[in-house]
Structures are given as C-alpha cells and as structure tokens.
C-alpha cells in the first residue's frame, strides 16, 4: 500500500471547503440534541447521569471548602473525631456512592434493553466497509443479495430503522453519527452490527472516530434522512444502471480509472476505490471534504494528495482537456 506524503496547502482547503459543505447543518452535531435513535435513548441516560455527576462535584467541593474554612472549635478529642470521621468515610465514601451507582447501573440496563433492538422491521440493510480513508456503502436485500453500491453517503427513510453491517478493508475505523447513533467499530476480520433511525428529515454529519492513519480527520460520512417516497425514488435511481457516454467512458478507461473504480454495467469493475456508478448524484467528494462541483472534481483529479493528505488515489498527471472530459463524464453519472 502506497501512502503518498503530502504537501501543506491541503489542510487549509479542507477546512475552507468543509465550511460551505456543512453550511446545511449549522448546529454542532451534539449528542445531547439527538434527532434519532439510539442517540435519543442514550441521551435519556446521559442527561440525568451528567446532572447527577455535576451535583456530586458541587456537593463534595462545597463540603471540602466548608471543612477547610469553617470557623468554630476544632479541638475535638482525638478518639471522638476519628469516630465521627470514619462515619463520614463509610456513609459518604461507600454507602451513598454505592446507592447512586446502583441506581445508575439500573438505569443503564434499562437503556441498554430499550436501545438494543429497533422497534420495527428494518427498512434497509446497509453494508458499510471502512477503507483508508473513505466509506464503501452497499445496500442489500432482506436475503443479503446486493442491490447497489455507493460511497460516503447513506440515504435513509425518516422514522424507519435501518440495519448496518460494519466491516473493514484495512485498519480499524469507527462509525459514528453523534445525533443519531453512538459508535461501533469496523474491525478487520469481524462483522459488527448496529441500527439507527433518523426521526427528522435532514443531513447528518458523521465522522470516523477511531484513529486510522494520516487521513483520519478527512473521513466524513453523510447521512441523508428523507421521507419514504423520496428515499424510494433515490434507491430506485441508484439501482438503475447509469447512462454511460461512450467517449467519456473511453477517457475513463484510458486514464486508468477503471483499475480502481467501478461503474455498474460497464467493464470498469475496480474495487479499490469508491464505486462511481452514480457519483454525479452525490453531494460531496473525497469522503465529505469537497463539494461535488465540477471545479472541485477537476482539482481533485489534478492532485488528490494536495487536497487530502495521504489519499491513496495517485496523481495520474492527466492533461487539462482529459480532466475536462472526465469531469463532464463523471458529473453525468446520476
């Protein structure tokens, strides 16, 4: 595996483009303002736990300061003060914390029970495979037959649970959508499962949460939650073979793109990079760090590594006319 060492300008561009990309979701992706499950269930545990813990800190700090600065006589007899002190230790140090922890543990078990399974049959099963540094996404039927592939973007119907099967092609990654679901790791050699349900239409930002190498910060996932009919339309579009322009396809193959990328229904069946069958329909490029515009795509083809340090896509030294043709071709794949 070649990890190309990168230049500097990258980071600035990543930062700047991500701003406009994410202008859609202005709020921080707060785990305490969940817009779906299991995040909502977790927040119902997280909020009271946080408040209880904050209260504990305040109470013990007050006790400490009171004890340190209290006025009044401090010349109690030694044995008596030891006896009372030990009462503090037993009650304050063991009994009260034991009670609080038991309550928390009970609440935790209840939460675990509530969120371990979705409350209805899943609307879709999605296989997500982590790669350095992008997400492979494959929708499969109830019996596990592959339906269609995409990358770095999930579409889900609002209010319906979906199932995720998580795998890794290289190192450990972690799938995380703060507002909708906690983390589950993608581990080579294992299949992990999780479910999620978005309760509001919109776009949700997620990000790889387990350090996975130099591109870790640039491994974003986007989840689009949409009403059921829109979702079905999208899924149908993704299932159709794309209309492929033959001149563009020739440029695609001559440039070597087909070695790594797949376009459904053509001879391009590479499995190293993201599936490009409907790349024109996606909102972002390069795992969420670039908007999917002709300009950004051209810049990416010109020099992937300068936009995303460590990107495994090589710089193919394409000529400008070739880049122009490829951009037109790829943006046409909808």
């Amino acid at each position, binding site marked *: 595996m070649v990890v190309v060492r990168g230049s500097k300008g*990258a*980071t600035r561009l*990543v*930062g*700047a483009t991500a*701003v406009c990309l994410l202008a859609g979701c*202005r*709020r*921080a*992706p*707060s*785990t305490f303002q969940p817009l779906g499950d299991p995040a909502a*269930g*977790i927040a119902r*545990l*997280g909020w009271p*736990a946080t408040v209880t*813990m904050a209260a*504990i*800190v305040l109470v*013990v700090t007050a*006790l*400490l300061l009171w004890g*340190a600065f209290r006025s009044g006589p*401090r010349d109690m007899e030694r044995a008596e003060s030891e006896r009372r*002190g030990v009462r*503090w*230790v037993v009650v304050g*140090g*063991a009994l009260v*914390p034991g009670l609080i*922890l038991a309550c928390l*543990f009970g609440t*935790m078990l209840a939460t*675990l029970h509530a969120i371990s399974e979705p409350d209805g049959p899943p609307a879709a099963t999605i296989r997500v495979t982590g790669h350095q540094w992008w997400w492979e996404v494959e929708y499969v039927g109830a019996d596990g037959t592959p339906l269609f592939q995409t990358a770095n973007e999930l579409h889900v119907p609002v209010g319906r649970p979906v199932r995720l099967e*998580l795998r890794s092609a*290289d*190192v*450990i990654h*972690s799938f995380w959508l703060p*507002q909708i679901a*906690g*983390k589950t*790791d993608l*581990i*080579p*050699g*294992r299949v*992990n499962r999780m479910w999620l349900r978005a309760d509001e239409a919109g776009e949700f930002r997620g*990000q790889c*949460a*387990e*350090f*996975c*190498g*130099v591109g*870790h*910060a640039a491994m974003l996932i986007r989840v689009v939650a949409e009403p059921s009919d829109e979702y079905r339309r999208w899924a149908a579009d993704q299932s159709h073979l794309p209309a492929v322009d033959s001149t563009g396809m020739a440029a695609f193959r001559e440039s070597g793109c087909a070695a790594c990328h797949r376009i459904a229904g053509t001879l391009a069946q590479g499995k190293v990079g993201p599936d490009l069958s409907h790349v024109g329909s996606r909102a972002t490029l390069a795992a969420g760090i670039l908007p999917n515009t002709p300009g950004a795509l051209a810049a990416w083809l010109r020099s992937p590594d300068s936009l995303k*340090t*460590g990107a495994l896509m090589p710089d193919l030294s394409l000529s400008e006319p070739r880049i122009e043709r490829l951009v037109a071709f790829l943006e046409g794949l909808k």
Partner: protein
Amino acid sequence: MSATAAEAARASRLAAIWETRPGVVGALASVDHKDVGKRYLVTAFVFLVVGGIEALLMRIQLAHGGASTLSPELYDELFTMHGVTMIFLYASPILSGFANYLWPILIGTRDMAFPRMNALSYWIFLFAGIFIYTSMAIGDMPDAGWFAYAPLTGKAFSPGPGLDFYALGLLFLGISTSVGAVNFIVTLFKMRAPGMSLNRMPILVWGTLTASFSIIYALPPLSVALVMLWFDRQFGMHFFDSSAGGSPLLWQHLFWIFGHPWVYIIVLPAMGMVSDIIPTFCRRPLVGYTYVAFATVSTGIIGFGVWVHHMFATGLPQLSLSFFSAASLVIAIPSGISFFAWIATIWYGRPVFKTPFLFMLGFIVLFAIGGVSGVMTGLLPFDWQLTDTYFVVAHLHYVLIGINVFPVVGALYYWLPKITGRMLSERLGRWNFWVMFIGFNVAFFPMHWLGILGMPRRIFTYPAGLGWDASNMVVTAGAFVFAVGILLLSINIAWSLRNGVPAGPNPWDAGTLEWSIPSPPPPYNFEVIPTVDSRHPLWENGPGIAEGESDLTEGPVLDEDGHEVIGTSVLDGAPETIQHMPGDSLWPLYLTLSLTLLFYSLVSAHWPLAVSGAGLALVCLVGWHWPGRDPGEEG
C-alpha cells in the same frame, strides 16, 4: 562533651562507609537511593517539559478550525509521542523518583533492598527514553497513538521504523519498571525500621506497594503484545493480521489488561502522597487509615477487572460488556472512601494553608471531576457516544494531571526542602498553584463539552463553523496558562537552590520519620536505626496527637562492617537479621549500555551486533555477581 565527640566520631565513621566517591566515576557508580531518586525526578521532569511542548504545538494547530501549522503526519507523530512520553517517561518515573528517594527515609532504613538493581532501573529508564526519542532524531516517530491499535501498526500501514522504536523502546523500559517494582516490594517487606508494623506505614508506601504488585502482573501482557507486534513487523508473522487468522482485538485485550491497571499504577502512589501530606497540614493523623489502606489495595485489585471498558465500541457481546461496566462503576467506591477520608481529615483538623496544602485541595477537586467523568464513561451506552471524543481527552487529563501532576507538584513543595535542604518560595508557590489550577481547568474543562458536541479525538484539524471553534480557542489559551504554571515551578525550584531559606530537619512540623533527620539527609540517612511505636513518631511528644514510645536516639548503629541495615519481619517489623548491602558499582551502567546496544541493533535489524549486545549483557551479569571488589566500589 565526650558523648558529643563520640557521636561525631560515629557520624564520620558512617559517612565514610556510605558516602559515594567524588568525581564522575563515583557519581556513575553510585547506588545511593537518594542519588537514584534525584536522577529519576530530574529526568522525569525533563520528559514532562518535552511532552508539554508537544502538547502546546498540538494546541496551536487546534486553536482554530482549518489551521495548517502542523502537517497531519507531524500532528499524528506528536500526539503519539506526547502520550508515550507523559504516560511512560513522566508519570510513572516521577513517582519512582519520589519512592526511591523517600522510601528508605520514610520507613527508617539506609537504602533499598537491592541498591544495584535500583541504579540499573534508573539507567535503563534513561536509555530507554533516549532510545524512544531517537525516532524523533531520525525523523520517523511512531504515529499510531500511544495505544497503537493493530493493524494500523503493521508494516503494511506503517512501514517506517517509528513503530519499531515504540515496540522495542517500551519493551526496554519495561525491564526498568519490573526491576523497580521487585525492589520496592522486597524493601517494604524486609527493610522497615524495627517496630514499623504494616499498619504503621505511611500511605505512600501502601500506594507504591500496590502499584508495584500491579506492575508485576500488568507488564507481562504488554511485553508479550510488544514482542508480537515486533515479530509481525520484523519477521512477517500474523498475530494481529486477520487475513491470516490473527486478531486485531488480541492487541486491544493485551494492551488494556496492562493499560488500565497502569492508570492506577500512576495514580495510587500519588494518592498516597496526598494521604501523607494532608495530615501534616491539618495537624492530625489521617482519618480512617485502615480504610484508606484497604481502599488503595482494593483499587489495585479491581483495576485488573475493568480493561474492557476501553473497548465498549468494539462490538463484543453486550452481556460481557455489562459486567465490565458494573466493575467500572464499583471501582469508584474505594476512591470514594479515600476521598471522604481526606475531607474528614480536613474537617476535623486545623488546616494550615501552605503551598503543598493548596495543591492537595486543588487535587481533591480535580479528583472529583475526573472521577465522576469516569463513571459517565463507565455507563456502557453513554460511552458509545463519549468514547474516542474530546470528552475522554478531558477525562483522562483530569485523572492524569489532576491525580498525578497536582500531587506531584504539591509533593515537590513538601519534600524538596528535605532533598535540597532549602525551602521554596511560599509567595511564588501560591502564584504557581493558582496559575496551574486556573490554567488547567480552562484548558481541560471545555473539552468535556467539545466531546459531547461531537468532536472526535486525534483529528489534526476540523472545519470552522461547526460550533467547536470558540471552545478550542479557550482550550489552547488555558494550555498556555498551565504551561506558565510549570514554568513558575521551575523558576521557584531554581531560585530556592541558591536563595531558599534553610529548611532544617522538620520545616512543616510533620510527624513521620523522614523529618527526624537533617535536610538534606546524610549518606547513611539515620545515624541510629530508629525503633517505631506509632504512625507519627515525631508527634508523640509534641502536640499530643499521637501515642507511642518510639525511640529515635538509641538503637543499632551498624558502623563497623560496610553497608549494613536491619532486616525485619514482614508483618510486625520485628528485627530479624543484619543485612549486608552491596556498595557502589559500575556494573548496572555497563549492563544498561550492553542492553542499549542490543536494542539499537534490534531496531536496525543488525543481527551480529545484536548477538554481541546480548553477549556483553551476559558478561556484565557475570561480572556483577562475581565475588570480590567491583569497579567503582570503594576500598
């Protein structure tokens, strides 16, 4: 008159026996626990500063979204080196420094049980640190985080030598830690002053004892994992390679079976120091001594049963995860016991607000915050949101800085006068405390919030406009204020070495044995081996807060036949034997140099040289144990 003259003659006889020879060779050969302790303290402090500079560089990069001060490669190397440095080269060694210096004078003896092993453990620590930092010199630092999850650490994903330095460097350092742990355990069980039964030991001793046992059980899993990692990388084995039947999760289990007890290894001795310092400034013994001693030991034991809470998101079965969740909550109870023992001691004491005490008060608050955030991450589903975010970064820094650095700095203010013979400036000390305390909280408290707002850890940059910018700027500002606090500490120490008020034997009116001898202590520590009858021998006659009839002026002198100490029984500290101790020697240094050669040749895969290094090490071991006079030993 004649009594005084006899005492002076006795002192000079003892000094002649115990003194280290002057000059460079003498210094290199010294096995005096006080020399070893000081070297540990200074070296670990240097690593604290280096790791701190790495952290400041990262904070500059993260001060605002989309910054490009550091390349992602360099950022990844810095956070890895920061973690490795702080956890392995600062936090544990600084406590070894205190323990090495203080143990013999706390328990009333003249040296550690194995003085030469003690010197060996320092030399290996030093050279392992240099070895790990060689990766920086050659421009290829490890870059997979301090817990270095497989398979990212495999040759396929990390081809450079950085991770070989990590694997072999930590393996090398492990020798030092293990040797030190064995030494502490034997010293504690066999070398206490007559009459110092187990229930009369300072809590610091309990803390270091528990930590030492934990080290003996926790380090082998790490060493095994490191050897496997190096085999995978060097010889193409497949321990962590799932495509060939290996398991990446195996690394995580082995690492955290070591890693979580390690957290307690680097906090329990510090908590012990707190339990010993607070009574001095409250003018009364610790409330609930027995409870705190038991809490210390049980924390060490339960600490072995919680490692999977680092792996809650790995998709292991929920039933087993729930057990580890429960254990992670249960471990809060012994901490609660120590916590309320401190509060009760303060409550029923007469507090004197000197600088060391301020650091103890600050520590208690940070301990509470770090403790409850630990409970939050112990709640399994909640951890699915919190793990690998800045919330965890906040939590671990409240634990490691709050429970290690704050007590350590307080302990420096408390015990440096014993070590150097001069007081630190009280005025500068107060400034030091407040700058550190405020800077720390400004730097680390907002990180909790950042994690809850969805900011993952270990990202070299983040887009502006996500709601993370302002908090990150505050964090960076706080980090620099905290750094100023460390700078003030350094200035205060440097100032006191020249201008500090002479401390005298007992500047704090403390009750334990180390304050009965001059500051700095003579080479032989105690002119007369004391006989102990209570936990606070120095408080027996004074303020009337301790009862007992300890004898600090009459007892065995042992000034005739070389390095001699009293060996006592494990439980009661009843005198059993006169132990003859080895003197100064260069063999520990020679052995370390041979091992250093061995490890450098392993990292560069230079096998003939590696064989020579191993051969030389063997020769050194033979020489070390050969009867007769040793190089560097006095006549």
